[in-house]
């Protein structure tokens, strides 16, 4: 059993919130009041009066061998309590989400700039930083491998296509970065005629830069040593149990001695799926016997989490003159950076959904994930679909231009619908309203024309108040794109969630408590958990227990899956509780009653006039149920053909972007975004719209500004000064229309929401810029020099 340790100041407590709101309502967040008062404790807000501060020393080199590390000078700094290296890691020295290939602290080789090398704990963060700067590391610096194709021995596109699946003899640049080589995963999808021909063929190469999640709350947590030799970690994360598994391995401790509680999370977007400071803080706490807080600054945050995979993609689309897609060939390279992280799953998504929501009889897709000495890449909202959507949606526009067709008509002509087969051979067995999403967008009114002459308000011009144009070179464009994304974990993953629900009477009022380990990262799951419990148990007051490892795993807050899977678990646990309460009511009534249900804190039957208050029925006893809930199983795809039932559900959204481009200055202003999305069932419409608008902003950001610039393996812009995310001046009004076509396989018919709008918004912006400029634009983010030809 766990040993109670003193909880830090600001540790998460039960959330009850303002109350009210069932499934389908705009229920208020239970954490909302705390957040607007500044009282909600994020990971970086935790505090204990005897705590130390931990910092990380990181490699300045992307690729080097460590000859020696001398920590003596750091240890001598007054106020320093510990300096640790990999020698101090008691258990497994490497960790990872899917492959354990990433050192907790650098072993003999560093493989990316920013790789953690040593740790310091001191009584003030600046003391710790000054001490870390005195650690002497002797590096033998090597030339980094920075190109994914070269890392795999695929120097050019032509060569790839001459020998598509072969890894040729490794060149000097493609030295083995890991013992098993530089290939993380190669996924093949083969369908139909291997040598198809078509009337019209469009071939292009595309490139997507490295995007960052740029969540605002830095990686933070507080590790508290326990009296049993274990540790309590309060941390901002996306998946407590996968963290626990990796921490236990590194610390060589059993799970009952590594207890995690979710601290307040300031956004995640995939960037908190991998470990950051978790093991480091625990190591320092166990070594010093003191609580240790770690909180990255913004620069360190850029080095301390994985990013979205940059991609290079070659697409060939063949169609009939009437516009029917005949074939698609695609070769996709994801640069996974120095360690695997979730690259295997990103490759799985990139390949199995790599041509979009279209029906194509002949398909030949090769999707590769490679190791390089660039920053490690892993999960980010849209996970493998964002990159390919830029390519396949650009291809649809290019093909429409070649055919002289309207791009929306071309998409609708080839769109997937319910009953269609995906390129994996999987039948789409729930609504797939791709055509309706596009047609509804088309029907929305367009914003007013580009202002001219005296009507010009400079604030509305590209460049805004910098007064750089009066509209003389401004051209308007309109573009469309569709998103296609799997919901939840795929390819046979045992994707379950656990929920514990208790119903009891407190002070005369029926109260439900929901306990899951599902990470609330800002998306509103805690609200959804309350709404489901209110709906299923007919009570108003629902308390959300702090998220911790004292209950079973809920899986990751990612892949648009938590409302589906944890929502499903909470619903099922509520149903089990309800069944027991109703059974007891039947025994009290003493006869079968047909329409017994829970409502308003009572067991009621309208037909038979029964109304038993739960206070009478339950007395002091609580009814509690804990259970695991799974969606229907998926299966691994065939390794040679990529065929199989890989995905449990698809999400669909579509965007229309209207842009003004100053073609002389290369400046873009997005005038309006419109989005249609099928959400199956909007559990909380206000939160759904919030997800769509936020996802739209991140897609827009990747289209026109967001990129981690990496040169020779070195990050050029690890700050919010130089890594630009959209401000309120960059975001236009976002018009949203929600469709609700229930998925018969999902709880309440719901569909995962979070990622799809992040996928379709960027390609729509790109299409609009192309329409405004007439330029091909095959790389994102689009930069001024791409628009002015300079």
């Amino acid at each position, binding site marked *: 059993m766990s040993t109670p340790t003193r909880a830090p100041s600001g540790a998460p407590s039960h959330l009850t919130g303002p109350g009210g709101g069932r499934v389908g309502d705009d229920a208020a967040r239970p954490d909302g009041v705390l957040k*607007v008062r500044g009282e909600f404790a*994020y990971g970086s807000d935790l505090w204990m009066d005897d705590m130390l501060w931990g910092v990380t020393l990181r490699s300045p080199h992307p690729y080097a061998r460590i000859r020696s590390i001398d920590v003596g000078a750091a240890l001598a700094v007054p106020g320093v309590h510990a300096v640790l290296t990999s020698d101090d890691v008691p258990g497994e020295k490497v960790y990872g989400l899917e492959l354990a290939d990433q050192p907790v602290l650098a072993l003999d080789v560093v493989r990316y700039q920013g790789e953690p090398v040593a740790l310091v704990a001191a009584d003030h963060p600046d003391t710790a930083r000054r001490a870390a700067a005195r650690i002497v590391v002797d590096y033998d610096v090597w030339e980094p491998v920075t190109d994914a194709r070269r890392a795999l021995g695929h120097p050019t596109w032509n060569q790839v296509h001459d020998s598509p699946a072969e890894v040729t003899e490794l060149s000097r640049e493609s030295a083995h970065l890991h013992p098993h080589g530089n290939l993380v995963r190669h996924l093949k999808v083969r369908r139909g005629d291997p040598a198809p021909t078509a009337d019209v063929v469009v071939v292009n190469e595309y490139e997507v830069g490295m995007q960052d999640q740029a969540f605002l709350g830095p990686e933070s947590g507080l590790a508290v040593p326990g009296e049993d030799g274990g540790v309590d970690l309060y941390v901002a994360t996306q998946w407590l149990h996968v963290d626990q598994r990796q921490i236990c391995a590194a610390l060589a401790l059993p799970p009952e001695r590594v207890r995690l509680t979710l601290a307040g999370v300031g956004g*995640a977007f995939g960037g908190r799926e991998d470990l950051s400071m978790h093991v480091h803080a625990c190591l320092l706490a166990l070594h010093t016997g003191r609580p240790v807080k770690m909180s990255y600054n913004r620069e360190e945050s850029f080095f301390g989490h994985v990013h979205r995979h940059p991609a290079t993609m070659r697409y060939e689309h063949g169609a009939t003159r009437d516009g029917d897609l005949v074939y698609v060939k695609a070769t996709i390279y994801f640069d996974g950076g120095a360690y695997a992280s979730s690259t295997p799953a990103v490759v799985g998504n990139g390949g199995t959904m790599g041509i979009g929501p279209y029906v194509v009889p002949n398909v030949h897709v090769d999707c590769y994930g490679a190791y390089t000495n660039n920053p490690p890449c892993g999960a980010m909202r849209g996970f493998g679909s964002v990159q390919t959507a830029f390519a396949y949606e650009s291809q649809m526009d290019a093909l429409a231009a070649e055919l002289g067709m309207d791009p929306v008509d071309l998409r609708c002509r080839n769109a997937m619908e319910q009953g269609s087969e995906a390129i994996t051979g999987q039948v789409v067995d729930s609504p797939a309203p791709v055509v309706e999403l596009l047609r509804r967008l088309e029907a929305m009114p367009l914003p007013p024309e580009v202002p001219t002459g005296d009507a010009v308000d400079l604030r509305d011009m590209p460049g805004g108040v910098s007064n750089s144009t009066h509209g003389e070179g401004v051209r308007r464009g309109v573009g469309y794109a569709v998103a296609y994304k799997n919901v939840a974990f795929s390819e046979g993953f045992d994707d379950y969630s656990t929920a514990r629900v208790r119903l009891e009477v407190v002070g005369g009022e029926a109260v439900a408590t929901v306990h899951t380990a599902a990470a609330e990262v800002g998306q509103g799951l805690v609200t959804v958990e309350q709404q489901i419990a209110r709906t299923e148990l007919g009570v108003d007051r629902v308390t959300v227990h702090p998220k911790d490892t004292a209950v079973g795993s809920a899986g990751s807050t990612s892949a648009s899956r938590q409302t589906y899977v944890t929502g499903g678990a909470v619903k099922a646990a509520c149903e089990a509780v309800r069944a027991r309460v109703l059974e007891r009511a039947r025994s009290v009534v003493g006869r079968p009653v047909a329409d017994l249900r829970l409502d308003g804190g009572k067991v009621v039957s309208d037909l038979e006039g029964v109304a038993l208050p739960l206070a009478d029925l339950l007395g002091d006893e609580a009814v509690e149920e804990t259970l695991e809930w799974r969606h229907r199983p998926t299966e691994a795809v065939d390794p040679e053909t990529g065929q199989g039932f890989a995905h449990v559900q698809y999400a669909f959204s579509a965007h229309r972007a209207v842009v003004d481009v100053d073609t002389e200055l290369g400046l873009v202003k997005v005038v309006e975004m419109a989005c249609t999305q099928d959400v199956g069932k909007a559990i909380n419409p206000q939160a759904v719209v919030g997800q769509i608008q936020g996802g739209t902003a991140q897609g827009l950001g990747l289209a026109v500004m967001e990129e981690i610039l990496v040169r020779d393996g070195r990050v050029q812009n690890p*700050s*919010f000064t130089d890594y630009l995310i959209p401000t*309120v001046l960059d975001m236009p009004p976002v018009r949203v229309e929600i469709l609700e076509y229930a998925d018969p396989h999902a709880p309440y018919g719901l569909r995962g929401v979070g990622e799809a709008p992040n996928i379709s918004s960027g390609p729509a912006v790109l299409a609009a810029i192309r329409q405004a400029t007439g330029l091909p634009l095959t790389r994102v983010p689009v930069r001024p020099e791409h628009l002015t030809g300079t």
Partner: protein
Amino acid sequence: MRLSCTVNGTPRQVDDVWEGESLLYVLRERMGLPGSKNACEQGECGSCTVYLDGLPVCACLVAAGQAQGREVGTVEGLAPAGELHPVQQAFLEAGAVQCGFCTPGLLVATDDLVTRSRAEGRTPADAEIREALAGNLCRCTGYEKILDAVRLAADRMAGDPR
């Protein structure tokens, strides 16, 4: 160094402040007021926006010593205990709070904007709201609901003579 200043109307005194510490660090780590957030600590994101003698500033860019003898206002001081300021209420109702890390800074910036425009007997236009909030990054919402919240708060406060 001993720092004396007024925070949210209460005189505060802190000892052993190191000269390199920011006002943000002192508020969060020495005064127990973590409401102002530490998202970038380089004045780019606005999450740590506080009032300094009535003007909004990034607390991360203010050396603690610069606050000597001055008045500091943080998100914790926007409303009396147990109450909500109209701006806080509007952010909740409009769905402008997701992860909430940007929220404290946005609340102070919004309060400043609507207070200034109310003093001029008007509500801020959309372009003015966008300019006023351009220094506050939000990664979750796409800003649309934040704009809704500001409009809602401005409308309500316009009718409030305080």
